[in-house]
């Protein structure tokens, strides 16, 4: 059953067995695991079935620097969550990604890859991917061969690309038909209530902007609202814990991580570099699409003290006069409240190249990368996508501004540190050395990379919100335990990338689902119905 928190001014009391807060990838996947069983499941979703500007405004927040971050445009607030706009790139974490890495402070998961591995194949199915095979076999089988790097330095890596699966339309009918699952839309979670000792969640307050209210009583609650809202809702739940539920050790909201990427170098290739086309797009053995990149080997990461990373190559450079680039400049300036330089020229460029500008808007809405027109200058551009080191100062807190429901908006402090910079530099150097050894060409650093400190260049992000309720066996070091249960609270769990202590290079959706499927097994035993 799918319904809305209505009518305006109503006040409903709801009783259920399990309340899942959030209908994104994790929330929907978890609800499906209970469909058709005896357990009564309520899924509450702040948005509706379609994108809505008023609802999306509730995601606005404050960016406290040092790098600017738009909290509203990096996630989607309606049924299906950010699967409504994701690009579909999938890869699992590696064993090293999960291990304690002495050169990376605060690294190390309490679980190993052996715990995640059994759940990855089913996560693949949810995302319409093929076999759980991230070796380079598919690439090689297509008739080409990958670059033969020195394994002490670099390795080839694979993303499998989901179509991409949109969980809202994909699973809506199935969940609507499940008699034991109720989906409540337009129901914004505003506070988790707990008993006097904050050892058990007793209820969840819901609110709609039109004044409708509800109170949910459940035996168990799962927070699955994404890496920003998961932390925010805990911080907003202050009735019994002044610093927020689950926040006795001041960890909720800390260790926010993204997947930043930046142009690191230009490569002058020796002769034809047509091989990079196949790295960008190739056929997987099962028929799906794959993309390959180049990353530091485990040996290199250990030896050189690196974060995980992956480098991608593209030919030529974006045409600065294209409609999409002009529109991007206009948008960037206007969203910062500035009058763009040469705005009239850029307006003319947009009008003169309206097809490209319109296509860019379409791809942005669809969450797909826009193939911007390129100028062929015979060179390759090396972009390094780097894992971010967990830093407690990168954090979500409650801001000064209030949203339309009267709640403090999220405030994000986000920046990059020395380890990200040294990793990008070292990976670039390793690529240069291997391209030289293989006689593929010569590499020239971007100017910013020459200096070990100094301002960052234009940093792109992947809209991944990671780490704000991190996992640890020690309550002083993590918000949730290895089973994703909030430390000290017997009936509250968290699903999503907010529980990741570190992120590797891999886009998080596949691991979010693997962890969710694992959690589902645990919850089915606790709430058999």
């Amino acid at each position: 059953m799918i319904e809305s928190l209505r009518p305006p001014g109503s006040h409903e009391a709801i009783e259920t067995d399990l309340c899942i807060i959030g209908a994104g990838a994790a929330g929907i996947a978890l609800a499906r695991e209970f469909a058709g069983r005896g357990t009564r499941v309520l899924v509450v979703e702040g948005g509706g079935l379609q994108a809505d500007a008023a609802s999306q405004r509730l995601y606005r927040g404050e960016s406290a620097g040092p790098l600017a971050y738009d909290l509203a445009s990096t996630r989607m607030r309606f049924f299906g969550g950010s699967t409504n706009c994701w690009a579909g790139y999938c890869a699992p974490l590696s064993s090293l990604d999960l291990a304690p890495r002495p050169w990376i402070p605060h690294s190390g998961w309490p679980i190993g890859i052996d715990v995640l591995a059994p759940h990855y194949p089913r996560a693949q199915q949810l995302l319409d991917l093929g076999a759980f095979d991230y070796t380079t076999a598919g690439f090689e089988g297509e008739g080409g061969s990958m670059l033969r790097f020195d394994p002490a330095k670099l390795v080839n890596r694979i993303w499998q690309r989901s179509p991409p699966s949109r969980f809202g339309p994909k699973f809506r009918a199935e969940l609507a038909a499940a008699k034991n699952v109720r989906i409540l839309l337009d129901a914004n979670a505003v506070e988790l209530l707990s008993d006097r000792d904050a050892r058990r969640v007793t209820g969840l307050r819901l609110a709609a902007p039109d004044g409708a209210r509800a109170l949910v009583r459940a035996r168990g609650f799962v927070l699955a609202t994404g890496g920003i809202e998961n932390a925010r809702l805990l911080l907003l739940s202050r009735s019994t814990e002044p610093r927020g539920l689950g926040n006795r050790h001041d960890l909720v909201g800390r260790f926010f991580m993204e997947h930043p990427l930046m142009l690191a170098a230009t490569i002058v290739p020796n002769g034809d570099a047509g091989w990079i086309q196949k790295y960008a797009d190739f056929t997987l053995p099962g028929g799906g699409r794959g993309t390959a990149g180049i990353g530091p080997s485990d040996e290199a990461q250990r030896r050189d003290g690196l974060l995980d990373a992956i480098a991608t190559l593209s030919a030529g450079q974006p045409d600065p006069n294209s409609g999409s680039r002009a529109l991007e400049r206009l948008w960037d300036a206007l969203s910062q409240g500035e009058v763009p330089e040469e705005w009239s020229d850029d307006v003319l460029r947009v009008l003169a190249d309206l097809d490209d500008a319109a296509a860019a808007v379409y791809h942005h809405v669809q969450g797909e990368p826009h193939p911007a027109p390129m100028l062929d200058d015979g060179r390759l551009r090396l972009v390094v996508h780097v894992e971010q080191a967990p830093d407690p100062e990168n954090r979500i807190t409650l801001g000064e501004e209030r949203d339309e429901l009267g709640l403090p908006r999220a405030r994000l402090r986000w920046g990059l540190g020395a380890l990200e910079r040294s990793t990008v530099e070292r990976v670039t150097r390793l690529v240069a050395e291997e391209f030289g050894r293989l006689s593929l060409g010569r590499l020239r650093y971007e100017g910013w990379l020459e200096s070990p400190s100094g301002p960052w260049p234009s940093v792109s992000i992947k809209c991944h919100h990671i780490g704000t309720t991190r996992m640890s066996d020690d309550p002083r070091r993590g918000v949730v335990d290895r089973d994703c249960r909030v430390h000290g609270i017997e009936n509250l769990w968290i699903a999503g990338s907010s529980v990741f202590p570190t992120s590797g290079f891999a886009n998080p959706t596949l691991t979010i689902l693997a962890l969710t499927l694992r959690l589902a097994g645990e919850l089915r035993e606790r709430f058999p119905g």
Partner: protein
Amino acid sequence: MSQLGLHRRDVLLALGALALGGALASGGGASTVAASGAELAARLRDPSAARALGIRYLRRHPEERDLAFLHAATLAGDGEGARGVERLRARCRDDFRRGDTLLIDRWVLARTECRLCALVALS
């Protein structure tokens, strides 16, 4: 011609035949990359790019401001023509393999390439 009988033209031709030549040749503008060694060598008739890199290298390694040393470390024993160029290429590949590289003017160069540029600067 130097005391070693070293022609700058020969060094430039050697550089041009290496992959570095492609990088230098297109480093100053938006020209497309040359594919053949001959074309690269032709572009390097103006040795200013190689010379500038060589000067930077020698600033960083003043102990190598020695034609005899640089010649011995690069061209000596490599023979003439294609055989010599192939040996130079192998030497550069080995530099890259061992990570014996330098960052000069933001280019990541093999030690041998830097020394060839230094020869250009001194010869």
